[in-house]
């Protein structure tokens, strides 16, 4: 039983990172934004959920669902501001700006004690439906909840990637100038996708709070951003299945070493080893499988036509009349 609880905890953590990777894939993978601010939106989501739901005087004591919705909205608004100021910048410059915003968010969370209780943070936070499910079984239930929402995230991201919007995002990633030249609004799209992806990350923040049942600024260091990006690169950038697999593989490898029974004085060595293995994995995958474990696949337009010709299903929006008429020829 104990091992089952431990395993389900591991899967829950993997699921949380998988959700982050899927959300990051929306703007980092499909749109090709070099966004190193993931942990910032994550922290904002987690903190706004906590502050909305925790009892007065620290928080507003709202019901859980209001906290979740509120955290998504607050993260969305903040990322709208961050995106509006920084999305005009290109690659490296965007990377550093988003990184800087995330660091500022963490420093503010550590210092504004009236709001966030400083470095101590809050602990003993409530988890959803905790009163209905007794003790040990709760972790199993929670894992189920995480996996369910991961499935929703995955489904949503997959739909988005297949939609006209998804193709348009890839077009921007591959060649911004050409996409602009055919009359697409680059900045507006980037901003939209950025806010969407960040709000998704903010939502995952709530799960993280439930999982940890505490919240403190040192939970939100840039290591999380790097872990999520590593997961995405491992699995294959631009590919939702890759994002999920990459996250689970990375978390399993990192956490599996906790199983190894070692004397206490070697625990530091083991912690170092964990970092070493994650880093080596990233380097080796990049060297030998630059596309990641699963390469991004493009659904070819021709395949879509054949499908149409045979089954006469309504043509999906955005394939376009042009393409359809070509198919008819």
């Amino acid at each position, binding site marked *: 039983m104990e091992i089952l609880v431990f395993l389900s905890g591991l899967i829950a953590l993997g699921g949380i990172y998988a959700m982050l990777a899927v959300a990051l894939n929306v703007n980092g993978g499909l749109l090709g934004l070099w966004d190193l601010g993931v942990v910032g939106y994550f922290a904002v989501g987690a903190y706004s959920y906590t502050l909305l739901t925790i009892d007065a005087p620290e928080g507003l004591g709202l019901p859980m669902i209001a906290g979740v919705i509120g955290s998504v909205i607050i993260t969305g608004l903040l990322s709208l501001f961050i995106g509006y100021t920084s999305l005009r910048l290109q690659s490296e*410059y965007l990377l550093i*700006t988003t990184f800087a915003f995330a*660091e*500022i968010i963490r420093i503010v969370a550590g210092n504004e004690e009236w709001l966030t209780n400083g470095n101590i943070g809050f602990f003993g936070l409530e988890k959803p439906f905790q009163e209905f499910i007794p003790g040990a079984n709760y972790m199993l239930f929670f894992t189920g909840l995480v996996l369910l929402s991961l499935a929703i995230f995955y489904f949503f991201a997959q739909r988005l990637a297949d939609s006209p919007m998804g193709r348009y995002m890839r077009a921007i990633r591959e060649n911004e100038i050409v996409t602009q030249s055919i009359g697409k609004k680059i900045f507006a799209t980037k901003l939209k996708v950025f806010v969407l992806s960040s709000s998704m990350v903010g939502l995952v923040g709530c799960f993280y709070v439930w999982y940890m049942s505490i919240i403190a600024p040192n939970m939100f260091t*840039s290591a999380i951003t790097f872990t999520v990006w590593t997961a995405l*690169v491992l699995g294959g950038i631009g590919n939702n299945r890759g994002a999920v697999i990459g996250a689970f593989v990375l978390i399993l490898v990192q956490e599996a070493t906790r199983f190894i029974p070692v004397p206490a004085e070697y625990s*530091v060595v083991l912690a*170092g080893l964990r970092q*070493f293995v*994650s880093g080596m994995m990233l380097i080796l995958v990049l060297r030998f499988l630059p596309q990641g474990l699963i390469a991004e696949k493009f659904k070819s337009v021709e395949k879509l036509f054949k499908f149409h010709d045979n089954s006469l299903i309504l043509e999906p929006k955005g394939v376009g009349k042009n393409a359809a008429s070509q198919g008819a020829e």
Partner: protein
Amino acid sequence: MEYVIYGIITGCILIIASIGFSMVWKTENFLNIAHGQMLLIGAYMAYLFKSVLNLPFALAMVLSVIATAVLGLLLAKVFYFPVRKSGILVLLFTSIGLSWVIYGIVQAIVGPQIRTFGLETSNMIEVFGSQILSYQELLIIVISVVCVVGLHFILTKTKNGKGFRAMAENRDLAQLRGINSKKLSNYVWLLSSGLAGLAGILLAMSGTLNMELGWQQILIIMSVVIVGGMGNLYGTMLAALIIGLSMDVSTMIVPTSYRTAIAFVIVILVLLIRPQGLSKGGAH
């Protein structure tokens, strides 16, 4: 006044830390995140030589700078050179992976304790009757001035330095004109890692030695390089001083814990107002 002195010292260390990063960005076109971990390596090497092997501090410093430089070149040859063709994104992530590898190894060896070099506190220098800085702090300033002057000399007077500037402007054209870019990029990696090691030692001298040193500094280094304008060495030096000064002088107004946040606010503001950084253009 003392805040200004602290600011100048921080700025001097930042100059040394950022120049190498900037040079690599200029020649290899990617952000070498592992540069921060080279600072860590330099600092712990010096600790090894000074406190474990009991060498004199000056000798320990020289040895660890050389060791870090050689190690940096080796790491670049093993990890970066083979994936150079795959593009800057792959290089960037390889450097993140390498940061983790270095961090993990150092952590496994030294553990989490915070250490210091255990240097004796030196006397203060009195100017106009007020104590303004210690000999150690003066040493930091002198070392960085020597580095800046030396670097300026190398870049403008030696053949390799001129070659570096040519290569930074246009790699293909430089190669066409008979500049050996392979040899030059070896020099760049040696110099960059050596400077990083030196910066790590100076940082640990002015504060303490801990595992997070590399991660903390790389963010500030990136801010400095961005503010200075991409790969512009003189702009970088200026930006390092500005950011160092504003970080320390700002502690008069805002709480000390916001010190690093100031650097990031500056970089965001600069990027919004002048996306090319303070000084536009190449390395003159």
